[in-house]
């Protein structure tokens, strides 16, 4: 994704129409992610999981329009590290302004949907135990201090990773996947493991919901990657096909490992494999051919299926495998660009396997290290500060009872139960209502 700020180039209606559609597709990924994650947690905290994604849509949108977009995609203000505040509050951007061949307002919105998804992705690492108020503080701060700078480095005008280092990230292997994965790891370390981690299996409570979420993510991902061509063209078509292929080989790779290792091909594994393949092809979909995409997806499916077990060995409770799938998959995809990039896709750069030498692999490695280190350390620091200020962790009683009842006063599955018509949610009990009506 290399935005070209040429206001003189005319608006292209085909490009604009496709990016409008792609923006809607990417926005749908966050509710899809909510279902994907929501199905994975236990019954008592599914609503809290859904809420963390939904509030991210609202919080990141506000922050993005106030300052995020300007800092990420405004003209470079300092050494390729951060953009200026010239467009804070979207000042100076009207319907006639263009980014490349599409309206700048559309480009802004498309980019906004990426920022939303990245923030929401982190929530998987701290499922079931984070104080909701702390999440409401974390998301805006994190967006401005972590997501926005990285987006500027990799995609912004004059960004150092793009212009000085020369690393390629077509749709967000660095900006989205490695960023959310490293941040998830940092936050999981700050907040500590769930009560019962490594002792209880904590299986997903609703696998059909996980599958539905994975389906919505796959659907939306076509817009995420295809839209990153910023035009209705062959590159978009190639990206869409690569995205489909990598999801498929990711699924097959994960199931192959599961069958051999655990003896069962699980639906959870299929859903995770699809996402692992999609994660890995995200940076590479605009730089590799179809064969390369198949290898990238397969590699991610296999590697990530092992990586999700690392949390048990190294003692970090990355509850829903943000590190194992997004960080590891993002690294796999970003590095494999160095091997499989083909000049027919990139307009000049070849990877090691296409006769381009090891130069691109070195540039990709440098970018991975820089982004991983920055996002991990910054998020760890932000998490510690918020913890000092207000505490990031729900109380033991809240965690054991479940955040749905203690934070939101709701329960996801109210089947009536005793007497067939009794709401089981204490927060809604008749007794409580009477108490209120008779209160002095």
């Amino acid at each position: 994704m290399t935005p070209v700020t040429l206001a003189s180039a005319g608006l292209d209606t085909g490009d604009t129409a496709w990016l409008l559609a792609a923006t809607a597709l990417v926005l749908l990924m966050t509710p899809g992610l909510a279902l994907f994650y929501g199905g994975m947690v236990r019954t008592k905290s599914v609503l809290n999981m859904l809420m963390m994604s939904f509030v991210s849509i609202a919080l990141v949108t506000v922050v993005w329009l106030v300052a995020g977009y300007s800092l990420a995609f405004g003209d470079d203000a300092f050494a390729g590290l951060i953009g200026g505040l010239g467009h804070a509050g979207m000042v100076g951007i009207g319907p006639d302004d263009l980014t490349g061949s599409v309206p700048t307002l559309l480009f802004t919105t498309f980019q906004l949907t990426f920022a939303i998804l990245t923030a929401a992705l982190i929530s998987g690492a701290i499922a079931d135990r984070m104080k909701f108020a702390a999440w409401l503080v974390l998301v805006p701060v994190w967006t401005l201090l972590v997501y926005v700078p990285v987006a500027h480095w990799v995609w912004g005008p004059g960004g150092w990773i793009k212009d000085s280092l020369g690393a390629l990230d077509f749709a967000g292997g660095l900006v989205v996947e490695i960023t959310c994965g490293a941040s998830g790891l940092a936050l999981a370390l700050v907040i500590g493991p769930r009560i019962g981690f490594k002792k209880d299996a904590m299986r997903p409570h609703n696998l059909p919901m996980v599958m539905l979420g994975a389906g919505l993510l796959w659907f939306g991902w076509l817009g995420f990657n295809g839209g990153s061509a910023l035009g209705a063209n062959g590159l978009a078509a190639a990206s869409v096909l690569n995205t489909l292929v990598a999801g498929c080989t990711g699924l097959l790779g994960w199931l192959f490992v599961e069958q051999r290792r655990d003896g069962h091909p699980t639906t959870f594994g299929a859903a995770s494999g699809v996402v692992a393949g999609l994660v890995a092809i995200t940076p590479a979909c605009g730089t590799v051919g179809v064969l390369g995409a198949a290898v990238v997806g397969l590699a991610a499916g296999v590697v990530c299926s092992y990586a999700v077990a690392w949390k048990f060995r190294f003692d970090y409770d990355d509850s829903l495998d943000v590190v194992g799938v997004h960080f590891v998959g993002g690294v796999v995809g970003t590095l494999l660009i160095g091997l499989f990039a083909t000049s027919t896709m990139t307009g000049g750069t070849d990877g090691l396997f296409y006769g381009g030498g090891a130069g691109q692999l070195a540039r990709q490695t440098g970018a991975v290290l820089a982004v991983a280190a920055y996002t991990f350390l910054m998020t760890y620091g932000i998490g510690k500060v918020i913890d000092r200020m207000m505490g990031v962790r729900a109380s033991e009683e809240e965690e054991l009872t479940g955040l749905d009842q203690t934070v939101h006063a709701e329960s996801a599955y109210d089947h009536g139960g005793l007497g067939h018509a009794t709401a089981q949610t204490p927060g809604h009990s008749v007794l409580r209502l009477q108490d209120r009506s008779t209160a002095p």
Partner: protein
Amino acid sequence: MKLITAVVKPHRLDEVKTALQELGVNGMTVTEASGYGRQHGHTEVYRGAEYRVDLVPKIRMEVLVEDADAEAVLDAVVRAARTGKIGDGKVWAVPVETVVRVRTGERGPDAL
């Protein structure tokens, strides 16, 4: 009268129910239960990690019978529930002092 309680594997429910109906048992109460016995559950592998599952899903059946029928009912449950593998469950009988049919107020064996 006796209360016979059986804790059995969930997939044997239909066989046990059929066996008791063939003996002429008039009613039963069935609940889903969890528990463990001598093996303290089992281990399972999920997503590359091994877990101890100590509470295994079971079916708990309760049947009220006359004293004379108790042995036959116990035997029938055991025959129908047995798979020969670990975790087949247990059946036991305890004496019951009184039984009342709520609708009519009948007491004792008449209420069964």
